[in-house]
């Protein structure tokens, strides 16, 4: 294989080439092998040829409230990500480490506090 830092990406390049070739071959074969005048039965151009008919348009709006919940979730996910290595390594450093993590958690709590006061946590 090719050497160097980017060398490992060569495989990815080869894969891309293969994918492109596969695409070309598949469509080319289809073109060659398919009948010149394909049949057009009823329902062929429905969104789904089987199952339920779709309801409403594809551009339906999702309520902004879900976005806020996602955000709040993110808040704690990030907190957890940082807490793990801290618990494993930094705890040995003693009081300063606890203080620093307390400040970090405090800042995150500030966000939650703000969300609470702005009545985001209530589903209305």
């Amino acid at each position, binding site marked *: 294989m090719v050497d160097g830092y*980017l060398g490992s990406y060569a495989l990815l390049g080869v894969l891309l080439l293969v994918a492109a070739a596969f695409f070309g071959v598949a469509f080319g074969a289809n073109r060659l092998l398919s009948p010149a005048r394909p049949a057009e039965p009823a329902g062929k151009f429905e969104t789904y040829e089987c199952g339920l008919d779709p309801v409403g348009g594809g551009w339906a709006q999702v309520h902004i409230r879900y976005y806020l919940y996602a955000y709040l979730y993110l808040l704690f996910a990030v907190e957890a990500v940082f807490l793990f290595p801290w618990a494993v390594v*930094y705890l040995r450093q003693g009081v300063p*480490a606890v203080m620093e993590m307390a400040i970090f958690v405090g800042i995150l709590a*500030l966000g939650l506090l703000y969300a609470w*006061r702005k009545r985001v946590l209530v589903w209305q």
Partner: protein
Amino acid sequence: MKDISLPHLNYAALAPMLILFGVACVGVLVDAFAPRKARYPIQLVVALVGLIAAFVAVVLRAGKVTAENAITAAGAVSVDKPALFLQGTLIVLGAVALLLIGERALERGGPFVAQAAITVGSDADQRQAARESGATEVFPLTIFSLSGMLLFVAANDLLTMFVALEVFSLPLYLLCALARRRRLISQEAALKYFLLGAYASAFFLFGLALLYGFAGGITFAKINESAQNGTGNITLLYAGLALVSIGLLFKAAAVPFHVWTPDVYQGAPTPVTSLMAACTKVAAFGGLLRVLYAGFDRVHWDYSPIIAAIAVLTMLVGSILAVTQTDIKRLLAYSSIANAGYLLVGVLGNSALGLSSVMFYLVAYGFTVIAAFAVITLVRDADGEATHLSRWAGLGRRSPFYATVFTVILLSFAGIPLTSGFTSKFAVFSAAGGGDQSWLVIVGVVSSMILAFPYLRVVVMMWLSEPGEQTPSVSLPGMLTSAALVIGVVITIFVGVAPQPLLHLTSEAANFIR
């Protein structure tokens, strides 16, 4: 397993950033707990006091900083002289912009919307437009953004720089969306800014990864050392440098990464535009200078021609496009792009002189541009600000005082002697001339000439046209806008007439510590 120790923190050096960050957190608390009526005065006072405290911290630190004690937080932050100078500049410019942001005398409830999430045009929207005063979250957001900028100009490794970039960008995206009038265009601007900003951040991050691959580290000292020793894969070095530069040039609004600028400048609330035009410019060029001077000093012969080409494009595109603008805010956006070009010319001076001239330019331009936007907030009619140029015709007859002030500002932009525009352009061009970039200087002068046309056209319109039915009157500014305007204009003229003190300060400060 290697024992990891906590990094030592030099709190005196970090104080300005910590103060601003703390003040921003206090602002969040105030918004959460203070009664609705009291929020505005408390927020304004807290923000201004915080900025003053941070400035005092910068000044105190500036007296003590040496090459030895500049670097702290395990090499992540370098509070050296340029960083302190830029931080001081950011704080002062930010304070002046905050005065505009805090102005509530021009319009009931100030220039910001009360609840940005309410659908535009709905009944609730009309109710809030009529009655409710603007969101006070703008103050903590501004301070958060400024604290990010302070860290950005002091970052000594690429990852800290990236975090700081995001810290100062995200609040700006939000601020852009909060205009009280013309909310749709404001939200559109914010979304564009956010999407393109995220895109540019991705470039930066990718470049960071490549550079880590090159040097095995992300501090500028490490990168510089690897470049000097010739170890590592130079393809990674150059690809990484290119991508990191793109991320920074986006913030600096250099062509072809400038596309967001006109739309965002036009759509954002004018006080926020002034904050972006002044402070983001300072932060972006502060970061760019640090990356190029501290991190990639060894390869400047290789990046110079490319940055030079970008500078030429930026100057020409900015000035040529400014010619046909019909909206004063868009006009200033293109002028801001062209000014980014002039700043890049100074960056290419590639010496202490280049560094000091760019810092000089940033200060001079920052104050002038804030004053310009301050005037724009004043020229209004029943629908808010009247930004279309045709509405400015004959303003000299209606409001000679503000027309005069704006004329001074435009003349400064055009680089007429005795204004800061002349001294600052002279500084960057002479720095570039000293760095053997004479042809850049020629392009710069040509571009300045082209750019003088739209400025002077505005002057001609204001003074030589008859005021029409549509010419709006100028509102009487409140105390805060007056203060911002006076500070901006006085510094514009002072730096033009007596540039020596500022030149002295910038040349004192022109030395990066890796």
